[in-house]
């Protein structure tokens, strides 16, 4: 091609035309490269996001699984008290001391859980009254957590000396909220003594007597040596039962024992 000659397709000089095309091409190429980069970044970002969410779900599942397993294992491995002493002359008993089925409760009058079990035990003792079942209460005041529990046990014990143990036992549980957090619960216990109709002066002197103190101590140390570590703790014929979750479950334990004993 001679110099200065133009092709019929273009009015531009050839060099300029080629430059224009290559610019377009370059622009197009850059655009496509950018698109490809974006696509790959999107792909990478999508993967990253998916990994984040998979990690989040895995962490949540792991936490729930670990905690459930841990709680179940702790419940299984917690120490269980061994059998307790047979019924003695000094025990407070509802029913016949010679009954073939004996339900023993280690209780703390200031313990809210014992208060929650109180109506259950009372109702069962009424239900099985006159049958082959006897109910025993033994003191287990948790001195470290319940500052008034020991005094309450002594109040019940002192009332027992005047033949009104169960009356005081019931009042202490029913009105636990009134005395559990006061500084000197004995003032309130004195009123309860009046209410159940015992000699208050005698009651006051008995509360501080060595006999009452040692009776509470004997119950407590008997429970401790059997491995009792919480209240209430129930034993049927000397064997520990984990706290029943309902009155029906409790009743079933008793009727089972009755079935075995007959």
């Amino acid at each position, binding site marked *: 091609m001679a110099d200065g000659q133009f092709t019929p397709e273009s009015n531009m000089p050839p060099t300029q035309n080629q430059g224009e095309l290559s610019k377009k091409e370059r622009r197009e190429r850059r655009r496509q490269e950018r698109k490809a980069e974006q696509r790959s970044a999107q792909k990478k970002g999508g993967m990253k*996001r998916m990994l*984040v*969410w998979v990690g*989040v779900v895995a*962490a*949540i599942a792991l*936490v*729930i699984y670990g*905690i*459930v397993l*841990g*709680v*179940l294992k*702790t*419940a299984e491995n*917690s120490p269980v008290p061994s059998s307790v002493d047979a019924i003695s002359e000094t025990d407070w008993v509802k029913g016949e001391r010679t009954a073939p089925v004996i339900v023993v409760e280690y209780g*703390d009058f200031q*313990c*809210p*859980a*014992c208060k*929650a079990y109180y109506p259950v035990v009372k109702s069962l003792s009424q239900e099985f009254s006159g049958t082959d079942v006897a109910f025993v209460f033994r003191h287990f005041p*948790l001195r*470290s*957590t*319940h500052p008034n529990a020991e005094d309450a046990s002594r109040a019940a014990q002192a009332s027992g000396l005047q033949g009104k143990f169960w009356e005081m036992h019931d009042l202490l549980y029913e009105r636990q909220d009134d005395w559990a*957090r006061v500084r000197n619960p004995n003032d309130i216990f004195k009123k309860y003594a009046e209410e159940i109709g015992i000699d208050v002066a005698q009651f006051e002197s008995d509360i501080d007597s060595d006999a009452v103190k040692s009776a509470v101590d004997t119950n407590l140390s008997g429970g401790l040596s059997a491995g009792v*570590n*919480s*209240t*209430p*703790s129930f034993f049927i014929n000397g064997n520990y039962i*984990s*706290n*029943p*979750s309902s009155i029906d479950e409790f009743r079933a334990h008793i009727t089972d024992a009755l079935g075995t004993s007959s």
Partner: protein
Amino acid sequence: MNSEHTSQMPSVLPPKWVLIVFALVAFIGFIDAVYLTAVHFLGQSPGCSILEGCEEVTSSEYATIGFIPISLFGAVYYLFVFLLTILALDGGKRGALIAAIITTWIAFAVTLVLVFLQVFVIKALCLYCMASALTTTILFVMGLVLLQYKKGRSLS
């Protein structure tokens, strides 16, 4: 009031590390609440232990609504806040963060009631419940601080 309210909303997301701390606190709260829920359903029956004292709070009448323990509501709340914060972190969604922060306001109000019940009504404290009160308070305060965040400004 409205413009004042919206002007308080963060125009941009706070730094990632702050959101990560926020999510972690929510996750700690979640662990705590799941533990309390698991103990409620699977643990030993309530009692007073020589070593640990009583489960006065978790076995009180205020510990459940019907058959559902309060801790289960807590677990759902913490999980919700945690997931919203991850959403904000992951997708840069400002709305998710705002929703998480507003949820902490409700939770903080509930926490105040629960702490009041423990101190003045049940008159006993439960360690794990107080830990939950602490995590909710941290989330609430962090949320207030995060609302003040504007790009280029410090978080204070």
